[in-house]
């Protein structure tokens, strides 16, 4: 049985896993999991992951959740080039540091903007109070500032001269608010230059392929069935509002 990756490319951590696997020519079965349709709550997916989130991996009998764990597993199993997760003590620590920090910082803040700016008003039909939006924008701006000032500084990439998992995880999260129509790169030349380097290192074609759905989100919400979201509505509103 081929390695299976359960993915929904609307989701940031799914994009990083997808890009990583493709870039490294790791063959896998793309198992589409539609999060907005609630497929993660189905009985079948429950057997893959009790956490009920995407991405998930199934390699024979072995099932694994959490994008970072998945990418580290793939890196080790397929012996991907060292720069993705350097063996050097300090460089590896820099990558780990970013991968840890981002969970409750840029990931959380970028996701929130995506929901507050797009999904909640346009699909759920719920108005987002201005103060909530402003607070969320403040948080995102703080996180982006830290990406530039702490994690990048004067380096071409987070760990140094070459791209690593840290940059990959960072870029997919930063693209999420872009999908909601917020150009986070505007007025941020350092971040823009970094983005260009990351895109080049990944390959523009692969990068664009992975991001086509999220970048088309503003269009696709126009035809999205708001009834689909009824199941999630209370949970989403509690989480973000």
């Amino acid at each position, binding site marked *: 049985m081929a390695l299976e990756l359960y993915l929904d490319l609307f989701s940031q951590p799914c994009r990083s896993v997808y890009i990583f696997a493709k870039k490294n020519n790791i063959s896998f079965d793309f198992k589409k999991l539609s999060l907005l349709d609630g497929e993660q709550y189905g009985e079948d997916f429950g057997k893959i992951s009790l956490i009920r989130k995407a991405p998930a991996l199934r390699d024979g009998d072995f099932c694994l959740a959490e994008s970072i*764990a998945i990418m580290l*597993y793939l890196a080790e199993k397929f012996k991907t080039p060292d720069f993705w997760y350097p063996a050097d003590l300090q460089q*590896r620590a820099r990558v780990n*540091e970013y991968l*840890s920090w981002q969970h409750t910082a840029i990931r959380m803040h970028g996701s929130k903007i995506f929901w507050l700016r797009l999904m909640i008003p346009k699909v759920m039909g719920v108005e987002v109070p201005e103060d909530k939006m402003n607070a969320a924008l403040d948080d995102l701006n703080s996180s982006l500032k830290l990406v530039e000032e*702490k994690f990048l500084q004067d380096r071409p990439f987070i760990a140094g001269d070459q791209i690593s998992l840290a940059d990959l995880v960072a870029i997919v999260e930063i693209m999420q608010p872009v999908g909601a129509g917020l150009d986070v790169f505007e007025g941020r030349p350092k971040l823009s230059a970094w983005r260009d380097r990351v895109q080049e290192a990944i390959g523009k074609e692969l990068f664009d392929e992975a991001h086509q759905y999220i970048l088309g989100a503003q269009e696709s919400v126009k035809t999205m069935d708001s009834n689909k979201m009824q199941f999630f509505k209370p949970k989403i509103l509690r989480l973000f509002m």
Partner: protein
Amino acid sequence: MMELYLDLISPPCRAVFLFAKALGIPFEFKYVDLIAGQQYSSEFGELNIVAKIPVMKDGGFTLSESTAILKYLVQKYSGSVGDHWFPAGLQQRARANEYLSWQHANLRGHCQKVFLLRTLFPVIMGFEVLEETMDAALENMKQSLNLLEEKFLQNKWFILGDKISVADVVAVVEIMQPLGTGVDGFEGRPKLIAWRGRVKEELGEELFDDAHKALMQLSSLPEKLKSSREFEKVKLSFQRFFN
């Protein structure tokens, strides 16, 4: 000598402290008083502009984020740290990474929220916690504890199997956090109580209890925070968290 910038009132600081002590890794304890806002000093800012702890300084190399520090220590001291702490085997390593990744926004996030709501919310926000807010936080904590038991621990002695690993240390300190506020995440969960007992035994009971002493003196926290010079900065940071 390696320096660890810590305040044992913080769970990730306790995780790093417990691991380093239990493994006999030499370090200098540098106290950073979180409630007093010492993480906002310009001095500390040179170590970590994120203004968070724990922070490790090893010679000229400075590192933040507890899970990164733990992995650094495991790698640096690989000669003396038993493999079971962070196994090299492909699947076992993946399980450890899976837990360490998941816990940030789940068990850690929810236990932290309960703790802050119970201790500092009123003095920071200037009003009492709404019952529905507290209930929602408790429910989230409960769901995370359910997943810890059903998915991560199951019927094993420790998260990775027969032996303790960094995953268990990182987990247990988070559940201990709201205990001092009267929210016992272990109550009614004999499996977790037994697991905690095993973790304590592996780390050393005295060491474990010592590390958690700061949590048992919480009644003075609100007053201490109110009189802190950095109250406004702490307030801003917590308001963001409650957002």
